[in-house]
């Protein structure tokens, strides 16, 4: 018995020339379930809430309050909330469904060999990269919208003095580094958790993986929160820093 660890998700099958990986497959399945869930939730919304509605109301109201205190204004909170909360909710649910037991045991025979049927949705760098780019690009768009294109560019390409030029360059590197730090933090945590779980399961399948599963559960919640909050902070900084420099 040998342990196969692949950085990229394993290919399940091909549609045309596009390889459909196990992560992508389960992403589609999860999306379908979320959409169905939203459909039923939307139909059952009432003025006098039931238990499910109550939970969602509390979650949304609490999250909105948090977003509002972080960005500091209600209108900005209303604009950023859907993106940030969707990121949080989506990452959280994607992480949590990996804790449904029995997934590691199922493998499937494909053209490329035997591959596991299940893989954490977030343990797919492609998806994490897409979300990170979304987060960073929206941050840049907000910054351009608030400061105007010339001021925005002037922040990175500042020729007034060598020091300012250097600082502008650092800012530019910082923006690019955001993509790296944000995406690898989330992907690394989840992927490492998966690998760790697999290794522990491989070493001794009883009791030993349990503490790591708890650790993974903590990581699942914390990383979802961190990713969403960092996105929120980037956007709110982009929206407010320009205001401050205007005042200065």
């Amino acid at each position, binding site marked *: 018995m040998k342990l196969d660890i692949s950085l990229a998700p394993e290919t399940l099958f091909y549609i045309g020339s596009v390889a459909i990986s196990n992560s992508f497959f389960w992403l589609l399945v999860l999306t379908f379930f*979320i959409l169905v869930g939203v459909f039923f939730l939307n139909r059952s919304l009432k003025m006098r809430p039931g238990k499910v509605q109550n939970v969602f109301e509390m979650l949304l109201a609490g999250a909105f309050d948090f977003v509002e205190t972080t960005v500091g204004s209600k209108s900005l909170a209303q604009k950023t909330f859907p*993106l940030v909360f969707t990121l949080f909710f989506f990452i959280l649910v994607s992480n949590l469904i990996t804790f449904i037991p029995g997934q590691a045991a199922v493998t499937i025979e494909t053209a490329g060999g035997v591959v596991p049927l299940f893989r954490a949705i977030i343990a797919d760098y492609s998806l994490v990269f897409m979300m990170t780019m979304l987060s960073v690009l929206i941050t840049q768009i907000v910054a351009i919208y608030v400061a105007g294109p010339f001021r925005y560019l002037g922040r990175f390409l500042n020729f007034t003095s060598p020091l300012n030029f250097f600082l502008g360059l650092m800012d530019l590197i910082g923006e690019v580094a955001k993509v790296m730090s944000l995406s690898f933090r989330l992907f690394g945590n989840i992927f490492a958790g998966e690998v760790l779980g697999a290794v522990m399961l491989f070493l001794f399948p009883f009791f030993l993986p349990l503490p790591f599963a708890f650790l993974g559960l903590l990581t699942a919640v914390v990383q979802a929160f961190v990713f969403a909050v960092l996105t929120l902070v980037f956007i709110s900084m982009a929206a407010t820093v320009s205001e401050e420099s205007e005042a200065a």
Partner: protein
Amino acid sequence: MGLIEALGLDGRILLAQFLNFAVLLFVLWRFAYKPIFKILEERRLKIDQGLDDADAAAKSLLLTEEENKQLLIKARQEASLIIEAAQQQADERQREVVAKAETEINVITEKERAKIVAEKEKMMSQLKGEVSALVLAGLQQFLSENMTDKRDQEVISKIVTNLEK
């Protein structure tokens, strides 16, 4: 590049994942966040309205009670005024009746007294006549036996003067 291959990056899958996320974002926003926030806001407004209504009801209740109290006080005052007036009227009426009765009694008494006086005078005059006739008859009888004409004349005049006194 080796890293991109190792990480499994594929432009078409990236696009598919983006579209997937966009659909998720749109659906969650349109059919979950928005209606739930709307319901929360509506409920908040409803609660506000309910509290306002309760306040208004309590205020109006207080006002009504105050009004009732005022009304009661006014009614009592009016009642006492009416009773007083009635009392006065009754007193006056009584006085009137008594006064009228008194005057009537006076009139009647006066009348009776006048009647009695008249009766008395009538009786007296009648009695005088009768007595004088009787005396005259007695005297005539007595005198016819032992009196002369001269004597007769003297006695008559004497009696008459006595009577006139």
